């Protein structure tokens, strides 16, 4: 089986770069033949994650274009609140937190441990029925 295409880049967490990241995520989703809605979901997932990650420093983003969708990794992230929010087995009922948002807009997500107590958030988004 061929290796999936990969794209990685690093972007400032500063809010002004949010639209740039969105544009790139959109371009990657387009190359993976995502429909508008699936692309919008992935853009929203990445955007919310970056907002929660604060505004200082840079963040790495990597994308694997797999046969059925895109695996995204965001991090290492320092923000411990993200790990805590995402490691709860279930989100708090009735709240609209990061866990609730991610579980709605991506097919699955997970938290991977990185060095120095940092985390990497993995997002899996399937192409759906766009093709």
């Amino acid at each position, binding site marked *: 089986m061929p290796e999936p295409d990969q794209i990685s880049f690093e972007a400032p967490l500063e*809010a002004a770069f*949010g*639209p740039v990241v*969105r*544009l790139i995520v*959109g*371009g990657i*989703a*387009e190359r993976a*033949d*995502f*429909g*508008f*809605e*699936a*692309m*919008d979901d992935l853009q*929203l997932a990445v*955007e*919310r994650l970056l*907002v929660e990650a604060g505004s200082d420093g840079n963040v790495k983003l990597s994308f694997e274009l797999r046969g059925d969708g895109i695996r995204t990794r965001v991090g290492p992230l320092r923000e411990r609140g993200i790990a805590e929010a995402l490691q709860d087995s279930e989100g*708090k*009922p*009735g*709240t*609209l*937190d990061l866990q*609730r*948002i991610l579980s*709605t807009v991506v097919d699955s997500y997970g938290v991977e441990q990185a060095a120095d107590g940092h985390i990497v958030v993995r997002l899996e988004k399937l192409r*759906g*029925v*766009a*093709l």
Partner: protein
Amino acid sequence: MSTAKESGRLQLRDADRELLRRYHELGDESARDALVERHMPLVRSLARRYAGRGEPLEDIEQVGAIGLIKAIDRFDLEREVALATYATPNVVGEIKRHFRDKGWAIRVPRALQEMNAKMSATIDRLTSTLGRSPSIGEIAESLQATPEEVLEAMEVGSAYTTLSLSAPVGEDAADPLEVIGKEDEGFEHSEDREELAPALARLPQREREILRMRFEEGLPQTQIAEQVGLSQMHVSRLIRRSLMAMREELD
């Protein structure tokens, strides 16, 4: 010798000056109202130049009317200039400032703005025709553009600005949910809402309802769009802006 047209123009100018004198010297508010009414065609004409940039024409006209009123208020009776001449840069300036405050419309290339204006309808039409969410490539083909142009045009309309969430974003001035007057359920009825509830509660009812449908009921954008009578793209933008507004509230 004056032509009939020039003569008519002078009469209008004299009538304007008389109204301006009544307003400035006698404080006659009805004279100001009459001046506004007389010059609204000018405002509408100037506003139309800025149509198709993601703002409803009526809103642009209202902004232009503010420029007109400022011009009337500032008009110096000593100056030998027609009110229309004096008001035009004021009206245009007010409209440009409005767009500048919104952060994107003036500096975005017109071609992208025009593509953005067509985007919502194209996505909805393709979704209906194909029975699924169209790909960017399909949207691009329909708009005779490249996928990158489509993505850029989408980004044009979803600028990160502090737009009023209750303001219509384009095609829909009417708010169907306000008409229906449906009660909110879900998020706001939770006991775990202390931190979130004020931020959520400050959102307009339509946005709260859209968030509830998306994140509680798990409805896709297409279904939400159908239920609230908006385009899919508009629903997407309202979701993003609402989440952003709530996050800013918590900071």
